[in-house]
């Protein structure tokens, strides 16, 4: 059993466990932390997938920026642990919602896994064959040629997000 495999299993385990932690965790603070962990593990998987650059961005942007934003908000609103479901109808609804949702998620998981396993292992004919995709140059080229428009479009996206965030979160004058 070679290193790659071992690494894969380790990272996969971490990711899954961490994610489970995120959704199983009452305290949003911990959730965020755990999520960062799982992202770290994902970054590891990216490395295994010969995508170091992506791995780095994953760490820097995702774990570094976005998650910090979350953390910031959690702090700001300062709600240490979520309050138990309201009593009465809504509460009951909530719990039933939970059950339904959990069941559905399970079903979905099974569906996807089953479907993908149905796809078959050697489905790409040759495995691990292809040319290296780790080169940042390639990525850069492709990003600014093939995906130039999408790239430009994201600028609008971000602009919208900014304006939106401002207009919503801004206190009343």
């Amino acid at each position: 059993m070679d290193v790659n495999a071992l690494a894969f299993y380790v990272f996969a385990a971490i990711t899954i466990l961490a994610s489970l932690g995120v959704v199983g965790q009452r305290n949003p603070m911990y959730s965020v932390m755990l999520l960062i962990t799982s992202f770290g593990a994902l970054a590891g998987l990216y490395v295994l997938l010969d995508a170091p650059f992506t791995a780095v961005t994953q760490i820097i942007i995702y774990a570094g920026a976005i998650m910090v934003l979350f953390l910031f908000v959690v702090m700001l609103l300062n709600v240490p642990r979520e309050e138990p479901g309201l009593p009465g109808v809504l509460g009951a609804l909530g719990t039933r919602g939970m059950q339904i949702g959990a069941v559905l998620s399970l079903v979905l998981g099974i569906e996807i896994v089953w479907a993908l396993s149905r796809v078959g292992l050697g489905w790409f004919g040759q495995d691990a064959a292809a040319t290296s995709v780790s080169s940042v140059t390639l990525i850069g080229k492709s990003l600014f040629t093939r995906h130039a428009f999408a790239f430009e479009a994201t600028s609008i996206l971000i602009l919208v997000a900014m304006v939106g965030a401002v207009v919503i979160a801004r206190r009343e004058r």
Partner: protein
Amino acid sequence: MVMLPLIPLLPFLGFVVNAFVGRRLSKALSGGIACATILASFGLSVAAVWTVVSSHQAIEQTAFHWIASGELSIPFSFRLDSLSSVMILVITGIGSLIHIYSIGYMHEEPDGEYARYFSYLNLFAAFMLVLVLGASFPVMFVGWEGVGLCSYLLIGFWFRKPAAADAGKKAFVVNRIGDFGFILGMLILFVTFGTLDIQAVAAAAASTYAAETAGIGVITAATLLLFLGATGKSAQIPLYVWLPDAMEGPTPVSALIHAATMVTAGVYMIGRCAVLFSLAPVTLAVVAAIGTATALMAGTIGLVQNDIKRVLAYSTVSQLGYMFLAMGVGAYAAGIFHLYTHAFFKALLFLGSGAVIHALAGEQDLRNMGGLKKHLPITYWTFLIGALAIAGVPLLSGFFSKDEILWRTYTAHWPTFHSLLYGIGMLTAFLTATYMFRLVFLAFHGERRGDAHHGEHHAAGAHGHGLHDAPPSMAFALIVLAIGSIFAGYIGVPHALGGSNWIETFLHPAFLAPGAPHEAAAVHGDARTELLLMGLSAGLAFAGIGTAIYFWLRNPAAADAWSRRFGVLYRVLSNKYYVDEIYDASIVQPIKIISTGGLWKGVDAGGIDGAVNGVGFGVRTASGALRRLQTGSIRTYAASLFLGAVLVLGYYLYR
């Protein structure tokens, strides 16, 4: 050459004038117009009939083309042959007299009503003439329904009286039942022969069909349906119920419409379709049976009625029964002959009773009359003549016609059946004499019982100062009719009495298919038997009169005694066999109940509309239920979205 259309048109014009400007005219003027028009039309009729008689030709004229659709083509055409000649003379002649009579009788009415009355009367005359002159079934039907309308209007003339209004409606509706048969009959004939012209139908039928001795063939069906129409119009079982009620109308109306003319339309119609009926023995048998039964039934009822007009009404029904009997045994001429004589004496009787009522300020109950002889001499004597005539006392008009019928019945084939009919006929003759003279004695003899307190508004003027006999206009009519009642019969003196029975030979061609050989109607039996039977019936007439004398003149106590002894029978008769009640309970009420409870409230509101609104309600309920899914909880929303996704994937994976 006279214009046939003018004959009905003139009274119609009278109607138009009186209907539109009548209320602005004086009584004299509107009454005058009415009489003038009908008299004029009488003159025309005489002229027309003269041409027919002299030329031995039927006149046929087309006013305009009425309906055309595909192969169906109905010209609005009139036909004057021997049969219709008799009819139009009766209608216009007696009609004129009754118009004149009315001038006096209706005099107390306010101007407007007076004009309205005469307009209706004219309209009736017009329609009646259309009926008898119509050359095709639809045109005849125009008159047929038209007279029905007029009778409706005239019966309900005093519309403020609910009874009158009811009677009018009843008359119309019952007639409608008959018309239903008439229409179907027409349909059958049209579909069978492709035409509705009476002559054409007759010709086609005679040429293509043999007599349907066995089973119900097309002709039989058609004639039976037509006969249903006749029973409605001519008040035969089962549709006679409207006629007695019709007495709610003014008495001259009863005389004209419900005695002399309209009610005989059924008889006329059968005569008109004689060719067809002859081809359907079954129908003829039915006609005869119904006629006889009606005659007897009405006679018995007439025996115990106390309303002077109702007695006459039932006697009319009974006499009509005679006519149908005649038709049924194929003695068309005899039937028409009786129709013609009956028109005289029955009109006379009604007008006489009218004079009585008029004098008594609207009193109609025999029990409150009596001893009027000395007060109303003219009325009394004329009335007496009428009574004698109808009773069949020899040498008066009624005698000849009635005897002709009985004789033909006796001599007709199907021995047993016809002898039965004959027997009943004789019995009825006896009854007729009895109740007529009961009427005479109760009304005119003895001394006055009770006084007219509850009077009809229209005669209020007559109240107060003592009884006065008929005013001139009325007296004139009475006298003319009395003369008619005596001599009218002499156009039909049977061979047995050395007469030529001219009417028979005159009418005969009208009952044959066009172009058929004119052989005289075969009469079985010999002159001696005929004379014998004549004597017998005459005897019966006198017997009837005798009975009447015994019970109601000599010792009235006996009458009451008998009526008490046969209490049940008496009650049944005086309640007219409860027929009205039976009809009401068995037909009218059920229909009302079913319509209200079953159809309207049940099927309509409950069933259909219930279903419709049910759909609406269902949608609303579903809506109310489904909107609850929208709990407002974001989790539910996500769940539904998620569920959708899972289902979609599942659909793809597990298919």
